């Protein structure tokens, strides 16, 4: 399936359920009187900007350079050469193994998320070209149930990694997940972390090159599995990346968290990221890395 066929009429992710973002002080809560269709308020600098200008700028704020939410389809569009994406395992659909029910049944939640995002689950995987270099590529979309990993995401990534191993392809996985392992599939979600990590161990032994790209946010079980296992780890600027959510940490230690805590720049300073790469440069940086590693 070509990326163009994927639905792109998506709005910003719904963060109301977000354990990490939901509690952040909403400094720039949308005010009445701003037509939501045409204008957009930057989460970082608070400027009101023209939605179309932002879209033309890869969803990067034209005023402060803040990297806003980008859908999986758009990420693939910006990352791969035009028309080269071929989707793998697009026929996988989430089941409801726990018959999970909170305020809403998981089965219903899945359907409404599918409608809202145009995705079947939180990941897109497949193959394509980056400046004429063939790669295996996976992207998680932080809009679909917080970009969390359940059985489908785990299975699609495991198959992607196995195929990259067989076909000796460089592997690029772009992570965006505030939710980590998906609660609604319980223990099965947790075990996907082990499954995907084990597949990466084999890929590593076969000599593969795995470039992990972290975007806002990459947390919990996603951060604590494939996202952290890249041979090289790149991150977009100011992305929230970490294991425990800021709210959990704050509740545990009862102290204010330092400025910029768990942001890309903080992780770079502490030695967990190779490079911070702006969205506009990501494609070139990945192509260059592939060349350096002789893949």
């Amino acid at each position, binding site marked *: 399936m070509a990326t163009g066929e994927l639905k792109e009429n998506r709005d910003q992710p719904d963060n109301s359920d977000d354990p990490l973002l939901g509690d952040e002080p909403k400094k720039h809560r949308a005010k009445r009187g701003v037509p939501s269709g045409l204008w957009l308020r930057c989460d970082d600098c608070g400027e009101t900007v023209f939605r179309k200008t932002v879209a033309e700028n890869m969803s990067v704020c034209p005023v402060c350079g803040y990297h806003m939410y980008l859908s999986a389809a758009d990420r693939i569009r910006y990352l791969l050469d035009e028309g080269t994406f071929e989707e793998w395992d697009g026929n996988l659909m989430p089941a409801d193994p726990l018959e999970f029910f*909170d305020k809403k049944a998981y089965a219903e939640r899945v359907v409404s998320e599918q409608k809202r995002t145009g995705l079947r689950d939180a990941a897109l995987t497949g193959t394509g070209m980056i400046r004429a270099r063939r790669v295996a590529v996976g992207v998680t979309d932080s809009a679909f149930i917080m970009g969390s990993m359940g059985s489908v995401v785990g299975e699609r990534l495991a198959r992607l990694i196995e195929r990259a191993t067989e076909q000796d392809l460089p592997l690029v996985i772009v992570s965006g997940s505030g939710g980590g392992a998906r609660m609604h599939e319980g223990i099965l979600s947790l075990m996907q972390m*082990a499954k995907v990590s084990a597949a990466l161990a*084999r890929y590593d032994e076969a000599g593969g090159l795995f470039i992990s790209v972290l975007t806002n946010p990459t947390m919990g*079980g996603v951060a604590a599995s494939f996202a952290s296992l890249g041979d090289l780890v790149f991150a977009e600027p100011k992305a929230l990346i970490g294991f*425990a959510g800021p709210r959990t940490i704050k509740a545990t230690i009862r102290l204010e968290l330092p400025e910029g805590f768990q942001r890309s720049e903080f992780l770079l300073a502490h030695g967990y990221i190779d490079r911070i790469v702006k969205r506009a440069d990501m494609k070139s940086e990945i192509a260059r890395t592939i060349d350096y590693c002789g893949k």
Partner: protein
Amino acid sequence: MANTSYQLDFEAPLRDLQERIYQLETDDQDSASARDELRAARKALLDKTRDVYSHLDEWQTVRVARHPDRPMFTDYVDLICDEFVELHGDKFFGDDRALRTGFAKIDEFKVMMVGHHKGKTLKERNECYFGCAHPEGYRKAMLKMKKAAKYGLPIICMIDTPGAYPGIGAEERGQAQVIAESMLEMSRLETPIICVVIGEGGSGGALGIGVGDRVAVLEFSYYSVISPEGCAGILWKSHDYAENAAKALKLTSRHLERLGAIDDVIEEPTGGAHRDHYQMAARLKMYLVKTLRELTELPPDELVAQRYEKFRKIGMYLEEAASV
């Protein structure tokens, strides 16, 4: 008379029966009828205990898994191992007391023991952060497990943690990264690995030492993607719904087995492990020795291949017939 050993609310009928027994024991027991009454009361307690514990719901199971008298890592080491030689430190930052490692002997086997420890006294609990390990704990475990593989020692991991520690230092030292790496390394270590959840199996902190050839869960332990409180806080917006969350998460041993996430359930003594440490340790030891005998028969490469396949198969999803 207060009896601390029946402190959970659903144990109220057991507490009453126990008090009745104490009463009868202190009474004059000269008559045959008094002795019969005592015998009947003891039997009633046993039957009732069996009955209560065979119908525990999810939230009650979580409460049992967290019982302060439940045997911990050091108890099992004392009761199961003929010898334990603790090995400290991650050779990088420090020695995490919440995750302990060391050589041990179990019957004919020399093994590497790895386990979370919650601590018994308040002082020890503080040192252990109540069983929540820091990155240095997982680094230490990874280091010792690699040594075990190098010298051909099987590894036994005992999981008992509410979760990996959520703190500033833990994040600064790469909590996410070490857990990820630990899973990756465990998936390819060429030595038998047995993992047993002995109490709380809390999320990534549990799975960080949970990738093994056999993953077993004690009957009243739980293993979950997130703590019931954490799940309630996110989905119900309040920790008060932990009971609902526990139910929804299907985190008990029988559910886990049915979902294909674990290999074995080890039965607990009547009334739970906290009521009979010796019996529990004996059952666990029997399981470990039997499994060690099976796994040490297999060549290392086959072991690793089987381990991969085991985790590879976990997950439930729908697959539409591929459209061409």
